């Protein structure tokens, strides 16, 4: 195995070992008080710029973990290493006020290569959901006319590490699966610095889960048409709840509430069309949250849907088709989230655009994308998040088994 590839593996391992801290507060949204928190999408670099569209796209220049069947598109001579980070600036608005926060973190890590001529694999690491908020309020000091400052905060999230494989079953039909291990903790805390106490609920979650994928391609004239399907079953997460009360004088572990968490059944379908360096696709994804309940008076769940579309096209002119060619992308996304808060459904919409810029003369690519969007609404006492996210993703390619080829 090549030295560089070894380096990437080492970095992956180190980041994996530190995963708890690195992904611990990936989001900052008061909506992450609820349920499993803020659901993150697993789309990598190029797809992020296309509204998160990717179910029918094959992996090639980058790894597409949205559909495990896509790995069959990985070049037999290359290994791909990807790392993605983001910076997000969000303005939160109620009917009365606006507040803003800046937030940045690692988004995902992935590696893909062809293990044998018939089996392409990928493994990686990405957040599934995240909790991150800190809300300052006041509470009545009962028995007096005074109020005292109190903070509600949350952090943590569920991360997933996956190992996936894909095979060409018959010509133009590939199937694949991602075996994922989900783990993490959701921490919600209320505390008062003035009186030196905190009550903390931590739910430790873990379980294995499998995503199945299928990709079928047909070629008509110069166009290739792909149909992608994904499925994963509903799965209960193993949950351990620990509630702790801490004062300046003592710490006590309390009998915890019995919170339960599950992953929903998920069905996705996508369609893509490709001609040369041009490609476009649409996705639809459905998740069965409705029968998954969370202990919260404000939250009701519903089945969620995600709709997206995206386009990628190459720069024109001299560089077209060369290693210096820039790929442009744009897309849009609409999500009906699983949350209905205080009888108001929480929906998400965004537009995105970006570019894949090759590093001069080499095989690697920097994918830059900007996502503009909003989540939630200012109806009732709810709040709307308007955000701009800058995603920076690096896809490093390396010749795989090159040494042997030269020998």
């Amino acid at each position: 195995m090549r030295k560089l590839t070894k380096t990437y593996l080492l970095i992956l391992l180190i980041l994996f070992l530190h995963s708890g801290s690195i992904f611990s507060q990936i989001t900052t949204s008061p909506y992450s008080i609820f349920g499993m928190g803020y659901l993150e999408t697993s789309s990598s670099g190029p797809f992020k710029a296309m509204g998160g569209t990717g179910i029918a796209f094959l992996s090639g220049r980058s790894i597409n973990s949205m559909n495990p069947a896509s790995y069959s598109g990985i070049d037999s001579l290359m290994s791909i290493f990807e790392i993605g980070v983001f910076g997000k600036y969000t303005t939160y608005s109620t009917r009365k006020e606006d507040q803003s926060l800046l937030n940045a973190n690692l988004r995902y890590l992935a590696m893909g290569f062809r293990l044998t001529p018939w089996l392409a694999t990928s493994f990686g690491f990405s957040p599934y959901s995240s909790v991150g908020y800190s809300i300052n309020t006041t509470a009545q000091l009962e028995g007096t006319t005074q109020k005292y400052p109190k903070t509600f905060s949350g952090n943590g999230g569920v991360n997933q590490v996956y190992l996936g494989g894909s095979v060409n079953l018959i010509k133009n039909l590939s199937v694949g699966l991602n075996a994922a291990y989900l783990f993490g903790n959701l921490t919600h805390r209320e505390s008062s610095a003035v009186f030196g106490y905190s009550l903390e609920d931590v739910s430790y979650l873990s379980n294995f889960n499998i995503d199945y994928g299928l990709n079928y391609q047909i070629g008509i004239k110069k166009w290739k048409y792909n149909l992608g399907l994904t499925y994963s079953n509903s799965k209960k997460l193993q949950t351990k709840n620990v509630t702790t009360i801490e004062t300046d004088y003592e710490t006590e572990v309390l009998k915890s509430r019995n919170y339960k968490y599950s992953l929903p059944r998920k069905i996705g379908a996508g369609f893509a069309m490709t001609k040369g360096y041009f490609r476009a696709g649409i996705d639809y994804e459905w998740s069965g949250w409705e029968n998954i309940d969370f202990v919260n008076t404000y939250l009701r769940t519903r089945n969620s849907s995600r709709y997206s579309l995206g386009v990628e096209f190459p720069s024109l002119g001299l560089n077209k088709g060369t290693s210096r060619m820039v790929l442009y992308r744009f897309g849009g996304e609409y999500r009906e989230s699983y949350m209905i808060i205080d009888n108001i459904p929480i929906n998400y919409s965004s537009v995105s655009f970006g570019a894949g810029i090759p590093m001069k003369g080499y095989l690697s690519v920097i994918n830059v994308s900007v996502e503009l969007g909003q989540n939630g609404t200012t109806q009732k006492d709810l709040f709307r998040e308007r955000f701009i996210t800058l995603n920076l993703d690096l896809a490093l390619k390396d010749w795989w088994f090159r040494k042997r080829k030269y020998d």
Partner: protein
Amino acid sequence: MKGMCAGKKGRKILSFFIFGIILIGSCTKTNEFTIGKDFVESRTKLQVIDTFRVDLSTVLLDSVITSSSKIAYAGHYSDTIFGSISSESYFDLAYESFSDIEERAIYDSSSFILHYTDNNFGDTTSLMSLSIHRLTENIVPFEKSYLFNTSKFSYQPQVMGSVSFYPEPHSSDTAVSVRVDAFGAELFDLIRNKDEKVSTEEWFKDYIKGFVITSGTADNKALIGFNAGQEYLVLRIYYHINKEEAEKKAITIKMGEATHQFNSVKFDFTNTPLYNIKTEGNEVPATKTGNRAFMQGMIGLFPKLKFSSLDQILASENWKILKAELIVEPVPHSYEVYGLPDSLYIFRSDRENKRTTLYSDKSEPMLAYFESDYYLHENNRYTYDITSYINRELSDAYINSFDGLMIGPNDSKLSSSFERLLVEGKHPPVKLRLYYLSY
């Protein structure tokens, strides 16, 4: 080769990415964020409860160590609340081998010199009268170290010297002289004649056993604390030698050991609410003393507080005491003549009323400073944070009904100051204010 280059550059960009994450990731500001507050579900409730009964009583210590305090209190005062108190101050003299006195020296006079201190108690503007008596037995400290407010040694009934004066307690350059001319003349002759009575320490101590300063016959209204440092409390014998111009000379004999100097304090609670405290086993509840508790140094009066209804808390589940404050208020207008202590310590006490110092979270003895409201004379109080104590008491799920707290001076102040406090026990009562968190 190309691959290697890509690797170097790749690694550079990778490091940049990772450092970028760490830098930006740490600058999320959340401390002033409030949006979302309508959707948080509080699981805790914090309330202030100050209705727990505090049982108040007054404890009289069997005795108070008053030796080595470097203050010689003499005088007397009488007051309708705390009764009448008088102090007699005992001391002896240090022996030294005396230098020769010339044959032609002529004795003039002798005085005990008493220097003022800031430690005075009562009405210091009235005429004071003090007397000095000679002891008929040596001062022998208990365990070679201690003497108590209750200690006594016999002395000659006749006065060897007395003085009447208007105290000038804040004057540092004036002193009170108590003339003891007759005694001085006798001692002068013994020294000049090199009598065996003054030849060794043993003989000297047998001859001069010690002295006591008593409150004179006049109706004194104060206790004056004189400096009982060995260099200050002295006997001075004045003489002169006749030359063309008289040469004045003096012999100064310093006070003896500090452990031999003490104040014997007599108190009389007749016609006060504490009249029967001794027959009641040195503790009377405030309900029998007009809902007040008494504190005074030198005598050893301590207010004691017990929290017998605190076990009501134990009946419920899921609570924590975040803070416990003890609020003690003086009886209004009870301190206009005698003042109030600037600060008071707090002690744990048991069935035998033994005091154990309570420590603050900083491991210092806990004390409260008097907080006063200069304009309204309301909210005058001493406040203690006794959270640790209360949590410890509650931690074994049992409240010992004899355990309690006492407030008062620390040991050094107890043996050197008459400072006093009258604690209000009813309007309002002593308050235990609990910050009670339930969940």
